């Protein structure tokens, strides 16, 4: 059925690397083509946050929940300045949303930002395929035959070879000032190294009384230190950490000198900086329901996750210990160090979207900073 505000419906399809064809109808930027790694996310809410999460750079996102766009798009729930996904594949795109904050439809949002989408797709079948075969590249198009699309897809560069971080990060440093109240002069100063961060990290730090400066992850060790940070946060971001030699090196300098928190890609960067290894998961962890156990307290919390790579628990250097594990598959979810003031997590304590159970980790980071002072 034609979406409200559209005069016609146009068939579109998603072709995966394995040649499978998934049919639906175009929405968003109709006629545009997108190529990216096709990943699924099992969160039932939070499409606006997901769409604007830079960690999805280079990817085509498939939410497993069939009804997308129900509560529209608002001016508040954004995690970066733009849509980051290359394409959006849904079972249904609601064209008459209902929520007090909504200002436009999902269709409008994608169209306004030039991102193609497909609706009407059997996203569960697609998800099962990805789960069984592993993530793969895909192409969304309305043009030509699936065979032709597959050819174009095969010519495109692979996700794993792309330097996606540089595509999504800030070009120059900035201060994050949005937040409650005035900061005291002795407020801790957190320098966030942007590898594809989500605004909510900045909001939560600021809400905890921190002065926050964001710098590109390409910033040198000396330039970071020149900002006289109380602590450094290595942010989440897209792609393979093995490609990020620069920031790995910078992190290597920072570690042990001042408190460091690593989230997601930042966690992987820390592991590599200390001599650990990372590897690619078959289909990644993306959702808001992953149970993680804190090995120090035995407490289990539900976490928001979005990652395709993980830290290898084997061969971690002496001193670097696994602090958290994923109860679904026992993968590494966090690291601590016996000597260094260090805290890393593979999941997203900033949530948005996802459960708010893990904001306490920011408090723990601030405790580390206080102790270190």
């Amino acid at each position, binding site marked *: *059925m034609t979406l409200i505000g559209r005069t016609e419906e146009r068939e579109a399809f998603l072709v995966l690397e394995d040649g499978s064809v*998934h049919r639906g109808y175009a929405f968003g930027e109709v006629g545009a083509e997108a190529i990216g790694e096709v990943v*699924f996310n*099992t*969160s*039932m*809410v*939070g499409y*606006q*946050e997901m769409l604007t999460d830079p960690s999805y750079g280079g990817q085509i996102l498939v939410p*497993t*929940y*069939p*009804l997308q766009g*129900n*509560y529209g798009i*608002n*001016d*508040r*729930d954004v995690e970066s300045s733009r849509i980051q996904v290359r394409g959006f594949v849904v*079972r*249904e795109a*609601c064209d*008459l*949303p*209902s*929520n*007090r*904050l909504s200002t436009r439809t999902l269709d409008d949002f994608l169209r306004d930002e030039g991102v193609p989408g497909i609706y009407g797709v*059997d*996203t*569960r*079948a697609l*998800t*099962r395929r990805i*789960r069984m075969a592993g993530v793969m590249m895909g192409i969304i198009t309305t043009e030509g035959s699936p065979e032709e699309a597959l050819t174009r897809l095969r010519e495109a560069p692979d996700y794993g070879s792309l330097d996606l971080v540089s595509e999504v990060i800030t070009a120059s440093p900035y201060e994050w000032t949005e937040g409650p109240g005035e900061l005291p002069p002795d407020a801790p100063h957190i320098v966030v190294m942007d590898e594809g961060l989500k605004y909510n990290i900045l909001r939560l730090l600021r809400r905890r009384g921190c002065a926050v400066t964001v710098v590109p992850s390409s910033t040198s060790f000396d330039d970071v230190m020149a900002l006289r940070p109380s602590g450094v946060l290595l942010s989440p971001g897209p792609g393979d950490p093995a490609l990020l030699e620069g920031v790995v090196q910078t992190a290597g300098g920072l570690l042990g000198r001042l408190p460091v928190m690593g989230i997601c890609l930042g966690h992987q960067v820390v592991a590599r900086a200390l001599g650990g290894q990372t590897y690619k998961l078959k289909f990644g962890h993306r*959702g*808001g*329901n*992953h*149970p993680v*156990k804190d090995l120090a307290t*035995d*407490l*289990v*919390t*539900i976490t928001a996750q979005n990652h395709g790579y993980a830290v290898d628990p084997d061969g971690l250097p002496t001193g670097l210990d696994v602090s958290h594990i994923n*109860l*679904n598959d026992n993968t590494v979810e966090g690291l601590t160090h016996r000597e260094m003031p260090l805290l890393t997590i593979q999941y997203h304590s900033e*949530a*948005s*979207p*996802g*459960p*708010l*159970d893990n904001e306490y980790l920011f408090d723990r980071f601030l405790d580390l900073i206080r102790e270190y002072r």
Partner: protein
Amino acid sequence: MTTVPDRPSRVLVLGSGPIVIGQAAEFDYAGTQACRALREEGVTSILVNSNPATIMTDHEIADVVYIEPLTVEAVTRVIERERPDGLLPTLGGQTGLNLAVDLSEAGVLDKYNVRLLGTPLDAIRTAEDRNLFRQMLDEIGEPVPENEVVTTVEDARRVAERLGLPVVIRPAYTLGGTGGGIAYTPEQLDEQVRTGLSYSPIGQVLVERSLIGWKEIEYEVMRDGADTTITVCNMENLDAMGVHTGDSIVVAPSQTLTDKEYQMLRSASLKIISALGIEGGCNVQLALEPHPTIAGNGQNAGYSESPYYVIEVNPRVSRSSALASKATGYPIARVAAKIAVGKRLDEIPNAVTQVTTAAFEPALDYCVAKIPRWPFDKFPSGDRSLGTQMKATGEVMAIDRSFEAALQKAVRSLEVAGDSLLWEHGSWSAISDPLEELPLHPNDQRLWALMAALRRGVSLDDLSVKTGVDPWFLYKLNAIVGMENRLLAEPLTPRLLRDAKRIGFSDTQISTLADRLPEQVHELRQEWDIRPVYKMVDTCAAEFEAATPYFYSTYEEENEALPLEGRSAVVIGSGPIRIGQGIEFDYCSVHAAWALQDEGAASIIINSNPETVSTDFDTSNRLYFEPLDEEGVACVLENERVTQGEQELFPRTAAQFGGQTAINLISPLSRRAFTILGTQPATVDQAEDRQRFDEFVTTLGIPRPPGAGVTSIEEGLAVANSVGYPIVVRPSFVLGGRAMEIVHTPAEFTRYVMAAMEEVGDNRPIQVDKFLEGMEVEVDAVSDGEDVLIPGIMEHIERAGVHSGDSMAVYPAPSLSEDDERQIVDYTIQLGRAFGIIGLMNIQFVVVHNENQDGTPAPSTVYVLEVNVRSSRTVPFISKVTEVPMVSLATRVIMGRTLKEMGHESGLWPKKPLVAVKAPVSSMAKLMGVDTYLGPEMKSTGEVMGIDTSLAPALTKALQAARLMLPHSGGILISVSDREKAEVVPIARRLAAHGYEVYATEGTATILRAVGIEVAGVPAKVSEGTEGEGTTTDLIRDGRVHAVVNTMSGNRVPLRDGFEIRRAATEQGIPCYTSLDTFRVAVDSVTGGAEAGEYSIMRLDEYVNGRPADDIRAS
């Protein structure tokens, strides 16, 4: 780390007793899961429940079973006997929870050192007590609706100004909120506050923010002993705040909440379960600010989170948790039981994925819709409006990949209103102002009224403002209307047909709109290859490989339910719980599925009721959650088709276990050439068609009450005249005695026929039979067509005329002569053979005692009233007390075995050395405007069993469990019809002799005084006196009488006096007997030999074996 107390080894589990409105099959499901979970943990379960129609009271489920009244006294004796070290109170609904509190307060738990598991006593109290609850929420910083105590109207105005109208007015210290209400206007405010102040003994009223119209959101949360907390599911009510959630249409997950709103409410819920210290499951209800269209303010709230309030907490498993379990595949009760005995969430395996643990939150990749099933089809005179008092007896659930499809499948599952959203009430066609005239206030027909309004062009905004229903739901309903219009206007193309199927249009609906026959739509779908696929409910949105055999249909690309290999058979369930078709048919469906497995066949259950054991994913080899209509079942059968060589094979279908719902599917399925197991369609037709049945039984020489089927008033009057009044009249094809009446005069008959023809259509025959006043006897049997095994004969306490489902029944029949018994056994065997019944059958007999001309007793006549060629309501009862596994035997028989092969022969099974009494339980207090008089139409919602070694204590226990027990002293009001005045005299005399104060209405009092019985008072009739000045209802409401007996005169016109008396008694919560027979046994029970304390307390198998077990307290 917390210290974990010793693991309990013997745990007492409390059931929820009889099915009543608000407590249905969900607690059998919860209790069954819990008992199995305890067994897995090596913990012995000791179950007490008064409801025999439950799976949980089976030996396969609980280790030790007590079918005893859920009273402090009875349970104390169980505790004394069994010495459990733990008590699990959270699985038996409010009944179980209240009983646990009572046991604790009586000191029983301390005395016997029984630890309360799961929910601490404090948490129960906090959740129950409004003030404690507010205090707890204040302490943890969770918002409750603001309120202020005022003593003047001026102050109330000031508070109302601050909160904004409407506001809730609650007078302080009045019972049950008397004098309170909601004020929508300044005038109402003044008036309500003035009234409230006058009602309040201390002159105070509370003015509270009203949340009417706010979104109602629920979270099902769990917590373990290590303080890990998770959310299993959240749900959004389509009906805004103001309608009980049990009466609301509910969707899962929430649809209109942003991530921020979802997480805000989730965090609040987790905070609450932690603050309460619950180890197990808990339901949290919250109100969220409505859409601006409804709230009337379009302002964005900036960065601050949207406001919400906590409404209520249920510190136990609940109806909602059963729904959440079925909606997600996460077994809440099972996990709660394991947590209660010390397991942590991350130590409990996820039964669905088998690789992950219970410490996770299910991800849904479908939409779930639940619709309540209300009893107004049986009580058309009842008040149909919905509010804070739940009225639904059951519910249906449907799953699909779109909301529209889930909703429409749920509507199909209801078995009301033509099974489709196309239904409109006849009177709506004349409406000129749909927004004002359609019944858009909360009521059981509102969903259809919303559709009607949209069809008539009412705008979404207007409708939203009027009803409080969020625009998103209306937009979706409007999409359904849009498709209706397309189907009406456009040619039916493959694309249009597929689009219609994808939003849940049934073949029948499409055929109506596109002007075709349903079969033609079905054929088009085959031709165009538009078939449903089946997707798995796997808790994880396909992220992990799952092993659950739990499927729903949808029109998508990939089918995950490939046909089962090998021998398989389908069991059709019984759909929503309703009056006349209750939990007993779920019991039968479950046992049929198990027996199929024992026979080496894979069992496939189809059902639509989320409350039940049958829809637990590990009950059968495969579960299809589908509407129980022709299309729903046929599509499953087609999906399970296997090809063997040249042949296409479909699973065979067992349709005799799911009540009338399943029986109704026999003929459409057989028309489509699907094979029905057991009794064949032709036989079913023959037994259901009164005329053919009559003819057939008469050829066997078995007496039938004289009568005939008629299609006109004239014909009916002639038949009535020839057989003589009173007569029983009913439409053919009835369920639970629906629309059946006993009439005494031609005038009454005429009125009945006119009314019946309006309801059921004027072409369907009406059966007119002589009404035989005699002893009603009921038999359940298993037949293989050759042999007929009769496990037991039940005798009804009430004479014929009261529906068998509303009668008290006794096993073994206490007053049946040997001759009559032999006659009944012979007739049963004869009928089983002659009809060729394969499987279960149930026969109702009336034994009429004859006299010779000189007045001496002559041999009685045994008449056959009806033969039901299916499982019956009493199958679980009789199976339990005789230990004959009726459903299991019947299932083997329909699969081709003979009774002989299984060691049985024709005849009556040896009687057990026990007496068991089944007593009905109604939910009348919850249904305003419904007459509680028991007649040929069934009115009860559930049943209990009293079992003992002799009749008197068994009766006492049944009466206690059914809350029909008389107090040991006090006032009794007697008001009986002229025909029964003589009969009531000896009963009244006994009451007076035992010190009761006998009150009687005028006519009755005259007779009683005439024979020398002291009458304490003669209240005026409501119709004659002035209310408030000593009328019958004043007497009842003042608490001066503690029980009422009120029978009807022959006239079926609802007499206002009797009606008022019965309603007043029901609302006052005192026993109200409408049959002298019930009253007599109730009086016997308190004045006879069996004093309350003298009953036995034994395990079910001890009664059956006739001796106490050797191993009690073997711990």
